[in-house]
């Protein structure tokens, strides 16, 4: 018994994905450097407390996040999945409480304020919905001739999506829904069933479009027709393009971006942090950052493909999808490829809820990696 346990322990850490860990540490570190650059000279130093400093806050969030990252990776994900329904109900309740008592910021009631700390429960909801979905869809492949798991997962995913959408946090709801679609697709759902989902989505989309807040609709129309753009949005998109474009090959140097340091670029430490990086570190720096993020996503997909079972595979793939979509939407917004949605860049942007939830999700990926089948890994 004791020998088995010893062997087991060793084997767990042997399969630990250190490449993933190093990538995560580098990205979080880069994020803190960028927040420092975007923030340091924006606020006068005198009279500012240690906690006022967003850099210090992000470091604390990162420490909490890494504790969860390691903590969650040790417990076998199958134990965690067995708890997922309880956690799911808990998250639905928190989302309901947020809708009723939540603190409104930037037009959305998506913040829960506990004393001095504001939490964004929708970030945690994303991770838990991925777990629940993986648990439902992670059945044997041939069973996807039946619609039951698909319908069940749809029934489970819709309440949190709807609650987040009604906050209204269109961006997060969209990420969650899209991650579910990717999971459904990669779970092996038949094409004809996918066509049904597409059909329902096709009917629902116009209804949801008209349910959108005017400012959100405007963001989409202003993206399609820039002349109708809201002054604030189009100003910042313009400034983001100037920031990125003026960076050139090598950038203006850390803390030397004229657009960022002279406040021309707004929301620099959150939604538009990529523009700060591209301005100060140039094309080379931007490509390096994109490369690191792509490598991270690639690595998570690799973990998925080596997973021991369908549930583990779907956990990893859901998280890969979530990080990929959010990264693409954020960078696409910075580059004016996509409309403004106000989504942070995972691991990089300032924001405690987002960072902690993302690290928790990546901890689950490590968990899947640690419990993976070794032989399959060599094929990819």
């Amino acid at each position, binding site marked *: 018994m004791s020998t088995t346990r010893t062997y087991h322990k060793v084997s767990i850490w042997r399969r630990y994905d250190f490449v993933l860990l190093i990538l995560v540490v580098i990205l979080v570190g880069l994020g803190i450097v960028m927040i420092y650059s975007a923030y340091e000279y924006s606020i006068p130093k005198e009279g500012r407390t240690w906690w006022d400093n967003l850099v210090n806050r992000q470091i604390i969030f990162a420490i909490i996040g890494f504790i969860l990252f390691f903590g969650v990776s040790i417990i076998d994900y199958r134990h965690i999945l067995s708890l997922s329904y309880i956690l799911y109900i808990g998250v639905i309740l928190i989302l309901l409480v947020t809708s009723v008592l939540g603190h409104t910021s930037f037009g959305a009631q998506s913040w829960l304020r506990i004393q001095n700390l504001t939490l964004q429960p929708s970030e945690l909801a994303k991770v838990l919905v991925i777990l629940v979905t993986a648990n439902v869809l992670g059945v044997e*492949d041939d069973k996807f001739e039946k619609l039951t798991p698909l319908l069940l997962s749809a029934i489970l995913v819709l309440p949190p999506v709807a609650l987040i959408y009604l906050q209204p946090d269109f961006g997060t709801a969209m990420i969650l829904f899209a991650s579910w679609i990717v999971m459904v697709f990669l779970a092996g759902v038949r094409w004809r069933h996918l066509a049904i989902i597409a059909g329902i989505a096709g009917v629902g989309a116009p209804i949801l479009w008209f349910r959108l807040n005017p400012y959100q609709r405007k963001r989409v129309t202003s993206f399609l027709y820039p002349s109708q753009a809201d002054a604030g949005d189009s100003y910042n998109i313009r400034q983001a393009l100037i920031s990125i474009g003026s960076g*050139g090959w090598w950038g203006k140097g850390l803390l030397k971006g*004229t657009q960022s340091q002279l406040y021309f670029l707004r929301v620099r430490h959150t939604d538009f942090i990529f523009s700060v990086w591209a301005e100060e570190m140039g094309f080379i720096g931007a490509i390096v950052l*994109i490369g690191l993020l792509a490598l991270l996503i690639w690595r998570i997909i690799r973990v998925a493909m080596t997973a021991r079972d369908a549930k583990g595979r779907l956990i990893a793939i859901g998280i890969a999808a979530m990080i990929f979509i959010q990264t693409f939407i954020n960078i696409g917004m910075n*580059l004016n490829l996509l409309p403004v949605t106000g989504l942070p860049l995972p691991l990089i942007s300032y924001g405690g809820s987002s960072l902690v939830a993302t690290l928790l999700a990546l901890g689950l990926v490590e968990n899947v990696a640690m419990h993976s089948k070794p032989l399959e890994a060599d094929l990819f």
Partner: protein
Amino acid sequence: MTNWYIRGRYVLFRIIVIAAVVLVSAKLWDLQIVSSQSYQTEANANRFRLVQIDAPRGVIYDSAGRLLVRNVPSFSVMVTPGALPEDTEQREQVLQKLGDYLGIPVHETALDSIIYSSSSEGAEPLAINSQRTKTIDDIMNTQYNGEWTAVRIASNVPRDIAFIIEETQTQMPGVSVVAEPIREYLEGELMSHILGYEGRIPADELEAYQAQTELKYQPDDLVGLTGIEATQESVLRGTAGQKHIEVDAYEHEVAVLAEDEPVPGANVRLTIDVELQRAVEDILRDGMKRANSDVGVAVLLDPNTGKLLSSVSLPSFDNNKFSGGISYDEYYQLSSDPNHPMIDHAISGQYPPGSTFKVIPAAAALQEGIITLGTTVNCQGTIKVPNKYFPDDPTLAQTFYCWQTWGHGNVNVTEALQGSCDIFFYTVGGGTNDFEGLGIDRLDEYMKMFGFGSPTGIELTGESKGLVPTPKWKVQNYGESWALGDTYNASIGQGFDLVTPLQLVNATAAIANGGTLYQPQVVEEITDADGHVIQAFQPKVIRELAIDKDILAYVRAAMRDTVANGTARYAQIPGIEVAGKTGSAEYAVWDANGDLVRDEFGHLPTHAWFIAFAPYENPEVAVVVFLEGGGTGAEMAAPVVANILRYYFGLPTVDLSDPTRQIID
């Protein structure tokens, strides 16, 4: 994972990730490599500014070099609408905080609207507006000129409040403090009519200002609007410099890259001695109190150069109120005052000159040979002007009176001036059946020669030209033809004649100096910032009077006699020979019933005038004193002139307000 069906979908996912990386990298290549140059240009346009540095405005000194005005910093609080927080709640917080600092409400409160609606029944629409305090909303709405143009919320913000706002600026995005030099007038009311005041360029005059390209006017610039500030604007303004600066998104200057220093404005020294001015003001104020007069003027000229030595118009106003923008309430109060404190009555007031005017027909009649020194006219107190249509019917004739109803008897020109005999000047000016007078055309010619009917051209604003009435003028304005009676009235400075106090003292100066009509000037010299004289004083001659020197000498002698033995004995001062002429100019005011106001003897009220020069030989100073509705010139104006001359010649002044005091030594 053995299911190749699913494995294919994983490959598809990876392909999508690669596609996304390629798409994003391609866009980055386009932005950062292909189009980088144009974005760099835009980034530079964002942060670099070529701004004008306003030159320090020149200052103004009195004749003795005492500083009359200096530049002090003033703080304005601006709000850039586009830079305010987008979040409604935060935006409201910023404005509320700003409102608290400035003591201005942000929004219209319920109470305000009640006051507003209850007073809207009043007849005075301007007064209603002033009832309601202007809110920040009001200012932002009315001054709005685009999201990124700063709106001036408050001017003349106290220094400590400006500093607090400046320090908390980062917590109030969109709010900025601008420091701007404004004028501080050290003498306030004493010199306000001469110095004038500054204000922002009126919108409808902007083009005219900017047409002077070398002065580089900007739409919101402060410029001299009245007085010396206005007439010497181009001298005081200086030449603006410029600098290349780096700014942040809130247009705050971050660094200076290059600077081209401005050239400070030149300084102006006036001909006025501020201590003399102060003494004249005190004396005039006492004289007005004694005469129960609400408006008074005293002007002193140097008859040998045309230099304005002193010019006081009461009531006055504090021109400091205009520095950095006068409030609506204060402006309304000043402009609705029936005595018009903002108007310089010395140059803008137009009044009948009364008997002071008689020196003009006297000189004219002698020059034209209408009379000689020996010519006498018999004054019985009245003279009749026959009716134009029934010249033989004495009952229809109009009677003209002498102020001395019992008459002066036989008087020559000297005696007529000395006793201010009206009958003599009616006769000499208009003529009678058996005496050829000057006639209105020749009288007008001499009036114009003495400078009446046109502005003197002094370097001040708002000068009136007075009125030299002609038959043509009367037809155009009254639809009636000129009558002999009109000439009679014109000959004694009544009827339609209108003069400004400055015109009258300038004519007096021309008589005093032997026949040169100078243009009055108030600028002694202009010096640059280093003290080098750019422009020195040069007397300007309007014209030499076409009157023989000895005739002017006779007039001067008669004026001396008027003070020595005639109506103006109250103008005597010890040790100095004063020459002068009194005037009590009748004017018409109507009471509430539309009836002319008359005293118990049936006389119309009179303005008290006195003109004088001294010393009689080699005059140094010419003076006029005017007291609106002040009574007779002899009793009320002459003692004021005497006191002014006492001060001027270093003699102790007399307390005019003490009625028991003998005012002749």
